[in-house]
C-alpha cells in the first residue's frame, strides 16, 4: 500500500511539474499573468508530492518491505536502522529519487525566496526548472522506478553494499547532489535571461547567492567523498582521479569559474555572455556526471548494463537539456550584448584569466576521463588514463591560476597601474620566494627534484597567504578608527573571499606536505613485532576474532602507537566480513591530528602458524589540512552568502541601485 502511495505521488508530481514547465513559460512569452502565477504554486506543491514519495520509500526501507525490489536488493534484516535510511539513496533508483527530490527542493526554495523578483523572471526560472524535473521524473518512472514490486516476496534482502555502510558514504551523496542540483538554479536563471533577453547586473545579483550555495554543497560533498576514500579504501589515498570522482570535480571547476565571473557581471556589467555560458556548462556537467556514473559508459556494472534503455534515456535527456540550451545560447546570446571595457592590467583581466584557466583545467580533466571512451569508440583499443596524466596537466594550470590569485584581489577594476601593482606585490613576492626555497632545505630535503616540487607547493601557498595579508592591510590602511573596529567594518563578502582563498592555500600546504613527506611501510607482522614510520613505532599486539557488528564479523587487530618510548594510544584496525556479501572490508584505524595522521590497515592473514598478518602503516603529515582547506573554502562561501546586501534585498521589495561597494574583493572606486 505505502509503495503505491509513493508511486502515485510521483505521478502527481509529474503532472504538476509538467504544468510548471509549460504554462508559466508560455505565460511569460505572451504576457498572461494568470499562467505565470502558476509557477510558484506548482513548484511548491510538486515538492510536497516528491517529499511524500521519498517518505514512502524511506518508510519501505525502515520496515524492510522486501516486496519492493529496491528494498530487497539494498537492505537486509540485519542492517541497522541508520544504514537502512541511507540505503534509500544508496541504490540507482534511490539516488535518482534523491536527485529529483533535491531538484524539487531547490525549485521550492526559489519560489519562496524570490518575492523581490519580477513575476516574469520567476515564471521563466521555475518553468525551466520544471522542464528539467519533468525529464528526470519521466526517467525515474519509465526506467528506474524505486517502488517496483517483487513477487514472490523474498524472506531476506541482499543487503546494502558494505562499502556504503559507513557514515561518510551515507552523507556524501545527499550533499554532492545538493551541489549538482543546485547549479540548476543558475542554469535556469541563465536560460530565463536568454529567453527574456534581459541580462544585466541585477540578473547576476539574483543568481549569485544560489550559485554560491550550490558551490558550497558541492565542495563539502567532494570533501566527504575524498575523506571517505581515504579511510575506507585502506590505501591512504585521498584522490584517485577515477571517473566518478572526476565527474564531481568537473562541475566544481566550472562552478568556481562561474562564481568569479558572476562577480564581474554584477560589478561591471561585463562578461555577460561568458557568465551565461558558464552557468549552462556548470549544470550540464552536473548532468553529464550523473550520466557517466549512472549509465555505465565508463564504469559498467552488470546490474546496470542489463538495461541499456536507461543510458539511452539519459542521453536523449542530456541532448534536449544541454543541446537545447546551447542552441538557445548560440542564437540569443548576441542580443545580450557586451558592455564595458577594461585594460590588460585590471581585476577584470585577472578574473578572465581565472575563468579561462579553470575552464581549461576542466577540459583537460574531461578529456582524460573520456579518453578511454574516445579510443574505444574509434576502435583504437582499450586503455585507461591514470593519475600521472592528470597530475602532469592539472598542477601546472593550477600553478598559473594561483599566481593570478595573488594579483587579482590587489588589482583595481577597469585599469590598474602596473607600477602600483608591482609596488604592492614586492613584499609578498620576496617573502614567498625566500620561504619557498628555505623551507624544503630546513625540513631536510637536498635532492633537487624534491626540493623543486616542495618549493613549488610552498611557494603557491605562501603567495596566496602573503598577498591576502597585504590586501587586508591595504584595506584597513584607508580607514579611520581602531584596528578591531576597522576589521569589523569590512563586509562579509570580503571575508568570504579571504577565507576561501586561504582555504586554497591550506589545501595546497596539505597536498604538498603529504606528497613530500608521507611514509609508508608494507610489512608482515607477527604479534610482538614493531615497525617504525615517520618517528612513530607501531607495535602489533595481536588479533582477535569478534562479532561486533550486527551484520558482519571482524578480525580486530590491536596496535600500540609509540612515540619516544611512550604509548600514545591504541589503534584497532579491522578486517570485516559482511554476512550477506561474503566480502572482506578493511577498516583502517587512524590516529588523526592537526599535524597529520598515523594510519594502520590490515591486509591478509598469513598462514605461517604464528598468527602473522600483512600490515600497511602510513605516516601522513598534514593530510588533515586537505579537508581543512575544503572546509575553509566552504566557510568562505557561507560568509559571502551572509553578506548584508542579500538580506537588504530580501527585506526591501525595491530594487536597490547597484552600489558596487561590497564585493568579492574590494577596493572598487
Amino acid at each position: 500500500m505505502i509503495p503505491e502511495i509513493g508511486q502515485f505521488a510521483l505521478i502527481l508530481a509529474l503532472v504538476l511539474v509538467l504544468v510548471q514547465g509549460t504554462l508559466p513559460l508560455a505565460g511569460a512569452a505572451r504576457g498572461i499573468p494568470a499562467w505565470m502565477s502558476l509557477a510558484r504554486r506548482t513548484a511548491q506543491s510538486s515538492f510536497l508530492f516528491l517529499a511524500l514519495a521519498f517518505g514512502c520509500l524511506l518508510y519501505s526501507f525502515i520496515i524492510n518491505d522486501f516486496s519492493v525490489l529496491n528494498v530487497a536488493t539494498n537492505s537486509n534484516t540485519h542492517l541497522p536502522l541508520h544504514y537502512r535510511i541511507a540505503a534509500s539513496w544508496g541504490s540507482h533508483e534511490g539516488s535518482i529519487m534523491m536527485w529529483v527530490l533535491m531538484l524539487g527542493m531547490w525549485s521550492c526554495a526559489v519560489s519562496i525566496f524570490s518575492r523581490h523578483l519580477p513575476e516574469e523572471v520567476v515564471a521563466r526560472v521555475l518553468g525551466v526548472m520544471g522542464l528539467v524535473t519533468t525529464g528526470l521524473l519521466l526517467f525515474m518512472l519509465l526506467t528506474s522506478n524505486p517502488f517496483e514490486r517483487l513477487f514472490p516476496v523474498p524472506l531476506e534482502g541482499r543487503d546494502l553494499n558494505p562499502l556504503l555502510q559507513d557514515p561518510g558514504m551515507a552523507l556524501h551523496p545527499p550533499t554532492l547532489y545538493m551541489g549538482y542540483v543546485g547549479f540548476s538554479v543558475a542554469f535556469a536563471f541563465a536560460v530565463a535571461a536568454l529567453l527574456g533577453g534581459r541580462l544585466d547586473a541585477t540578473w547576476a545579483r539574483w543568481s549569485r547567492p544560489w550559485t554560491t550555495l550550490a558551490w558550497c554543497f558541492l565542495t563539502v560533498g567532494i570533501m566527504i567523498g575524498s575523506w571517505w576514500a581515504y579511510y575506507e579504501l585502506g590505501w591512504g589515498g585521498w584522490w584517485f582521479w577515477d571517473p566518478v570522482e572526476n565527474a564531481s570535480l568537473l562541475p566544481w571547476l566550472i562552478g568556481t569559474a562561474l562564481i568569479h565571473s558572476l562577480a564581474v557581471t554584477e560589478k561591471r556589467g561585463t562578461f555577460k555572455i561568458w557568465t551565461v555560458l558558464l552557468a549552462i556548462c556548470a549544470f550540464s556537467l552536473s548532468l553529464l556526471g550523473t550520466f557517466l556514473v549512472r549509465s555505465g559508459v565508463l564504469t559498467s556494472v552488470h546490474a546496470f548494463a542489463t538495461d541499456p534503455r536507461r543510458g539511452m534515456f539519459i542521453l536523449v535527456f542530456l541532448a534536449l537539456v544541454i543541446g537545447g540550451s546551447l542552441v538557445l545560447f548560440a542564437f540569443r546570446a548576441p542580443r545580450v550584448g557586451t558592455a564595458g571595457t577594461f585594460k590588460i592590467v585590471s581585476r577584470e583581466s585577472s578574473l578572465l584569466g581565472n575563468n579561462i584557466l579553470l575552464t581549461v583545467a576542466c577540459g583537460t580533466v574531461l578529456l582524460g576521463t573520456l579518453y578511454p571512451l574516445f579510443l574505444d569508440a574509434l576502435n583504437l583499443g582499450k586503455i585507461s588514463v591514470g593519475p600521472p596524466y592528470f597530475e602532469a596537466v592539472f598542477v601546472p594550470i593550477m600553478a598559473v591560476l594561483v599566481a593570478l590569485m595573488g594579483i587579482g584581489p590587489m588589482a583595481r577594476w577597469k585599469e590598474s597601474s602596473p607600477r602600483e601593482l608591482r609596488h604592492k606585490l614586492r613584499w609578498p613576492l620576496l617573502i614567498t620566494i625566500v620561504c619557498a626555497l628555505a623551507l624544503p632545505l630546513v625540513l631536510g630535503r637536498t635532492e633537487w627534484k624534491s626540493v623543486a616540487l616542495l618549493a613549488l607547493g610552498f611557494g603557491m601557498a605562501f603567495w596566496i597567504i602573503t598577498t591576502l595579508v597585504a590586501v587586508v592591510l591595504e584595506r584597513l590602511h584607508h580607514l579611520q578608527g581602531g584596528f578591531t573596529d576597522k576589521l569589523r567594518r569590512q563586509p562579509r563578502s570580503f571575508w568570504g573571499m579571504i577565507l576561501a582563498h586561504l582555504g586554497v592555500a591550506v589545501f595546497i600546504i596539505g597536498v604538498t606536505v603529504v606528497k613530500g613527506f608521507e611514509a609508508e611501510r608494507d610489512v608482515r607482522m607477527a604479534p610482538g613485532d614493531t615497525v617504525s614510520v615517520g618517528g612513530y613505532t607501531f607495535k602489533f599486539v595481536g588479533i582477535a576474532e569478534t562479532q561486533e557488528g550486527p551484520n558482519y564479523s571482524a578480525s580486530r587487530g590491536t596496535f600500540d602507537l609509540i612515540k619516544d618510548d611512550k604509548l600514545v594510544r591504541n589503534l584497532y584496525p579491522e578486517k570485516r566480513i559482511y554476512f550477506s556479501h561474503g566480502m572482506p572490508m578493511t577498516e583502517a584505524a587512524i590516529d588523526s591530528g592537526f599535524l597529520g595522521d598515523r594510519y594502520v590497515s590490515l591486509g591478509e592473514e598469513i598462514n605461517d602458524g604464528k598468527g602473522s598478518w600483512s600490515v600497511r602503516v602510513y605516516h601522513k603529515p598534514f593530510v588533515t589540512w586537505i579537508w581543512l582547506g575544503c572546509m575553509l573554502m566552504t566557510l568562505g562561501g557561507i560568509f559571502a552568502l551572509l553578506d548584508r546586501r542579500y538580506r537588504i534585498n530580501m527585506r526591501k521589495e525595491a530594487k536597490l541601485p547597484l552600489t558596487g561597494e561590497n564585493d568579492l574583493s574590494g577596493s572598487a572606486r
Partner: protein
Amino acid sequence: MKRKLLLLIPLLVFVVLAGFFVVGLDRNPREIPSPLIGKPVPKFSLPTLSDENKIITEKDFAGQVWLLNVWASWCVSCRTEHPVLVENAELIGVPIIGLNYKDKRSDGVAWLARYGDPYSFSIVDADGRFGIDLGVYGVPETFLMDKQGVVRYKHTGPITIESLRAVIIPKIKELKEQ
C-alpha cells in the same frame, strides 16, 4: 558573423561528445577480452548438482560444442537471464552446462525447481575455485567451447535474446560445422 560562429562552438563540442556517448553506450568498458579465449578450458573435476557422487571433468565434453553458464541462486541478474535460456534451450542446440557458483546446494536445487532447468546438468563450484581459473568476476557469465575443448567466446553479464540471436547462436553454428 565571426562572433556568431564563435557562439556555436559550445554546441558543436557537445554534439561531438554526444556522438561518442551514443557509440560508447553499446560498449562495455570492462569487457576486456578474456585471456582464456583460444586456450583450452581449465581442468576441473566437480560434482553435479543433482548427484554429489557423480564427478564431471572437462574430458567428458570431448568432441562436442558446449556452453558453460555460470549462475547462482543469490544472483539477481541471473533471474533476468534465466527465462531466456529456458525458452531457447532447444534453439541453442548444444548442451548447456550450468556452473552453480558459490551457492548452497539446496538453494540451487530449489531455484531450478522454481524457475526451470535449461541445463543438461549443473556442476557445483561451492568454494569458487574453478571460478578463479575461469576468471569469473561477476555472475552470470557464459563460456562457449569448441569440439576440442578450446574456449571460443565469453559473454559477460546476462544473456539477452538479442545477444543470443546476434552473437551466440551464429557462433555455435560456425563451431558445429568445423
